[in-house]
């Protein structure tokens, strides 16, 4: 059944949520929580992830690391750090496959998904769980920031996240239509998750697929900015290209898969339409129109167009940067944003070309953080 929630009805839900949050025994919620950590060759980072879960102010009942047939010591390291380790009989091929392998073993009411290269702020679970007090909420996600911000790629991603999670996501949350409950750190109501058949492997972006399915069925998805996590982002172009390829194809695949149901959900359809337009025509303008205009008008000043939206990005980003005392890091990362944006454009156009023209969708999940 497709139930469409208006902003007003969502607001009413929020009000119920606001009133009850103060009285929530969050520890009791955490006792009903299983954390799933899919891991393939994550020996370098999985122990940090498990330790950050164990050191939470409200630690979860169970931490399950799914050692997806790793060829390194991921399983033993995770076990030694204090997690329960499950190992499928063969590599499942995708992160979603590994998560689904473990989902059948989950008996708690809530399930959390965290990547094996992600650590949580000590109070992340405590901050995130109250969102699940509302029975209509099927999933909730938190604020994401790269753990390391050194290379141009990490810095570009840092800027993207700082901006999107400060300005875009809270707006989406207000209107009750969070675009994506990020796969690297989200909590789900287990009953609804199992009803969806877990995480689907039909697209390269299982988190987007699940979020849009929830919205289409009238479930709520929340964004809680106080719950912070720190994944390791691609540090070089090799890994970044794998991630961007997966994400771009994932977006296009989800639009192809969900467009009918998304069109029936007010605000979500507008979010998706605007994101799709900007991804395609924005990329086109960025890569072709602006340089072409500079050449035809014989005026290099036209290239200043690239920076015209800088204040729109910088102001919200600096608001969070001041709070986190990262103003210098933010300002020195600005040039990297433009490098990453250029790469984003290339990979998105490639995804559109592959899916719509060549009819060759990406089917092989290549890990790249």
């Amino acid at each position: 059944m497709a139930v469409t929630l208006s902003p007003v009805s969502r607001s009413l839900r929020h009000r119920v949520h606001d009133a009850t949050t103060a009285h929530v025994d969050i520890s009791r919620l955490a006792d009903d929580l299983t954390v799933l950590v899919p891991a393939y060759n994550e020996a370098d980072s999985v122990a940090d992830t498990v330790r950050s879960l164990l050191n939470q102010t409200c630690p979860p009942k169970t931490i399950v690391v799914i050692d997806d047939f790793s060829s390194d010591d991921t399983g033993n390291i995770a076990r030694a750090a204090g997690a329960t380790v499950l190992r499928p009989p063969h590599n499942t091929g995708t992160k979603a496959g590994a998560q689904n392998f473990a989902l059948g073993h989950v008996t708690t009411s809530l399930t959390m998904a965290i990547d094996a290269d992600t650590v949580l702020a000590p109070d992340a679970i405590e901050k995130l769980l109250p969102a699940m007090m509302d029975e209509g909420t099927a999933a909730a996600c938190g604020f994401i920031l790269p753990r390391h911000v050194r290379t141009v790629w990490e810095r570009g991603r840092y800027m993207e996240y700082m901006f999107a999670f400060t300005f875009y996501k809270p707006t989406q949350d207000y209107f009750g239509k969070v675009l994506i409950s990020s796969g690297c750190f989200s909590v789900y109501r287990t009953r609804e998750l199992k009803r969806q058949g877990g995480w689907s492997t039909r697209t390269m972006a299982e988190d987007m697929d699940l979020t849009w399915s929830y919205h289409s069925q009238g479930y709520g998805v929340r964004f809680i900015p106080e719950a912070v996590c720190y994944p390791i982002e691609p540090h070089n172009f090799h890994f970044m290209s794998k991630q961007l390829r997966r994400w771009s194809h994932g977006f296009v695949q989800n639009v192809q898969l969900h467009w009918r149901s998304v069109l029936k959900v007010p605000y979500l359809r507008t979010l998706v339409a605007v994101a799709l337009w900007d991804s395609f025509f924005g990329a086109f303008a960025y890569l072709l129109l602006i340089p072409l205009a500079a050449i035809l008008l014989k005026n290099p000043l036209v290239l200043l167009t690239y920076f015209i939206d800088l204040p729109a990005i910088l102001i919200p980003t600096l608001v969070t940067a001041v709070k986190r005392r990262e103003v210098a890091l933010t300002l020195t990362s600005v040039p990297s944003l433009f490098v990453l944006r250029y790469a984003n454009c290339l990979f998105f156009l490639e995804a559109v070309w592959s899916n719509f023209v060549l009819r060759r969708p990406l089917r092989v999940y290549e890990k790249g953080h």
Partner: protein
Amino acid sequence: VNVGLPGTGIGALFYALSVLIMLSIEVGRLALGRSSSIRLRLSLRLGAMLSGVVLSLVLVDRLLAAIVAASGAYSTAYVASNGLIIVLATLVSVVGAANIAGVVMAARDHRRSRVAEAEG
């Protein structure tokens, strides 16, 4: 997964207008005595950010205008105002198309379900 090109194109304008709508909803709720402190704080915070964004965009526009005017290339006021009109018109078209398609789709589904009800 991150989608699109944050900050660019019609997206930035769309979110700015969303914040304005959010603020007007909250003012209305406040007037009716149905406001929530969490929602009100969120909308005020985003509204303050939006004010900063608009102010800084105006400043950058003035700066670019000065640079371009010094080069004597063309009227920047003309370029800036036309740029805004084009972006706004594009946003209205995209949002309008998505919403019309959504309403048509919902109406079609409704009609189908009524036909199915009548038949069976």
